[in-house]
């Protein structure tokens, strides 16, 4: 059974101006649909990656998975329990400690006035658990030394701080860790260290990752399954081999073509046309149709449903 089931998930933000401005300027309310009718499942002990450009809703989905945001509509089920509608407090409590998150910026996500050992045991201590020897054990597991327990975050480099964040995420022995751009703030060589650590821990603890990233090379290396987002909609979902070898959706094709390649010396890329449209007034039908090279009338009219093609899910009228 899938560990995480996301069904028809949507999130709308109210981005209206204050009411007085609306009255004076005769504007109506404005709503931004950050996530729109997204469906996917995450299998236990796998890595599910969400990729997309800025404004594609990947971080919003991540926050809804861990319960930092409430869905406007749709359901997030973790181990069969929907945190938003479940009434049994004991069940909610049990699930909550199974979910942890790692954020992008290791400088902003550690309290500068706390010692590392207090930061790491916080998820356990706040629930009244036994924290004896916990921080020391976790520090060794993420490749830091026991002597680091008494230090403050400013004494560490970016990569080491991200290790501390990972140690904190592991403290409550979670099943699911949502990683929001865990290596985007890090240099290539440090990124390699952190990604290797994440792979090792996944094997050791039987973890499930939801990996949010804009970096296609990282996603290709880490993921078992990749979901591509565009303007809050899931446009394609496939295993990395399939996605990179035979991308079905025109947006995925454009993204892969545009991404700089390390062996693309002097490659003449025909740069993609246009930019991501304004999510407050998204295009009709398929959100990608204004930039799509093969768009037809049906694409402007109807929003494509998710279809299965040879084990690949794609939301495009014309993909085959």
């Amino acid at each position, binding site marked *: 059974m899938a560990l995480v089931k996301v069904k028809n998930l949507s999130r709308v933000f109210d981005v209206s101006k204050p009411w007085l401005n609306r009255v004076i300027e005769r504007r109506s309310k404005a709503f931004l649909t950050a996530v729109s009718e997204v469906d996917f499942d995450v299998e236990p002990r796998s890595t599910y990656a969400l990729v997309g450009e800025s404004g594609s809703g990947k971080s919003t989905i991540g926050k809804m998975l861990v319960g930092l945001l409430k869905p406007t509509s749709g359901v997030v089920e973790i181990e069969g329990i929907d945190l938003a509608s479940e009434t049994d407090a004991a069940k909610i409590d049990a699930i909550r400690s199974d979910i942890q998150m790692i954020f992008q910026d290791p400088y902003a996500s550690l309290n500068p006035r706390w010692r590392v050992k207090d930061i790491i045991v916080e998820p356990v201590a706040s629930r009244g658990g036994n924290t004896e020897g916990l921080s020391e054990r976790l520090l060794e597991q993420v490749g830091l030394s026991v002597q680091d327990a008494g230090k403050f975050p400013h004494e560490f480099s970016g990569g080491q701080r991200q290790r501390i964040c990972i140690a904190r995420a592991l403290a409550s022995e979670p099943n699911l860790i949502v990683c929001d751009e865990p290596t985007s703030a890090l240099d290539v*060589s440090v*990124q390699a260290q952190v990604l290797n650590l994440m792979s090792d821990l996944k094997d050791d603890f039987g973890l499930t990752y939801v990996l949010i990233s804009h970096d296609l090379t990282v996603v290709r290396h880490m993921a078992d399954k990749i979901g591509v987002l565009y303007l809050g909609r899931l446009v394609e979902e496939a295993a990395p081999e399939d996605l990179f070898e035979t991308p079905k959706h025109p947006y995925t094709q454009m*993204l892969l073509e*545009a991404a700089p390649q390390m*062996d*693309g010396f002097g490659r003449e890329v025909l740069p*993609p046309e246009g930019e991501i449209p304004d999510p407050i007034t998204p295009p009709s039908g398929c959100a990608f149709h204004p930039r799509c090279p093969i768009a037809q009338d049906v694409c402007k009219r109807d929003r494509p449903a998710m279809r299965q093609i040879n084990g690949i899910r794609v939301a495009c009228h014309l993909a085959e």
Partner: protein
Amino acid sequence: MADPVLSIRDLSVEIPTRHGIVRPVDGVSYDIQAGEILGIVGESGAGKSMAGNAVIGLLTPPAHISKGEIWLNGQRIDHLKGDAMRRLRGKEIGMVFQDPLTSLNPLLRIGDQLTETMLTHLPIGRAEAEKRAVAALEEVGIPGAAERVNSYPHEFSGGMRQRVVIALALCAEPSLIIADEPTTALDVSVQAQIIALLRRLCRDRGTAVMLITHDMGVIAEATDRVAVMYAGRLAELGPVRDVLTHPQHPYTHGLMASTPLASQGKSRLHQIPGAMPRLDAVPDGCAFNPRCPYATEKCRQAPVPRVSNGQAACWYPLVDEKVI
């Protein structure tokens, strides 16, 4: 070969601190020819931006050039002060920074920002400058340029703003553009557009470009030659294809091998042990020696050989180490 547009000779930048002098740029030399894109690549703290800032005279005191020479079109510019440097900036050297929003004045229409630069540096009148402003925006691919000159920076998207910044850097027709992480804040599809634009301008106008970035993919696609920096020093300099596919310096090799692309199909990524040294604790000899798998006693003591084109700053350069 023609004289280079920019020539940096043995450049060092020093910052005096309470704990002694640190050297974020240490004995760096390279040339950039007209119509050439030179990539400067390295991890954070490697001194790549500091070298760019030294060229354009934007070092923040107490950082200063302690040694070496900078020549631009046959003129020595590293000792220029105040007004002389200001005339050069914008006129001879254009600069593109990472964040397009903070490099534009939010209170001025972009047309005014362009004409101001041209009126300062070029012997032309206002009407001519306004005409050229529209042409400059058209050249960088902004649709409806004639109307958009009257827009404010906030009315543009991130990618369009970076195009405006490039138009601004180009409008006084400089011979050198320093682009410091110009696409880092942008999405992949917009990044491809900006790289294509930089390459076209470089080819059509013969502008020399110094492209500073940490992204190996951008380096591979955009540049002609690449300089790899480590702890303020040049580790390797050469044609981009040679450096990336057959790196001679163990650091370049480690850097390339640790990118996910090079490890495709493997379960683990290649790792370089340790981290780049802090600038106040750069080891003797080769700065990379504590992390280098091939280091010997010689590497720990003797200063490494100087780099020239197609060479690595290494006593034992790798031969025939293929990465990708």
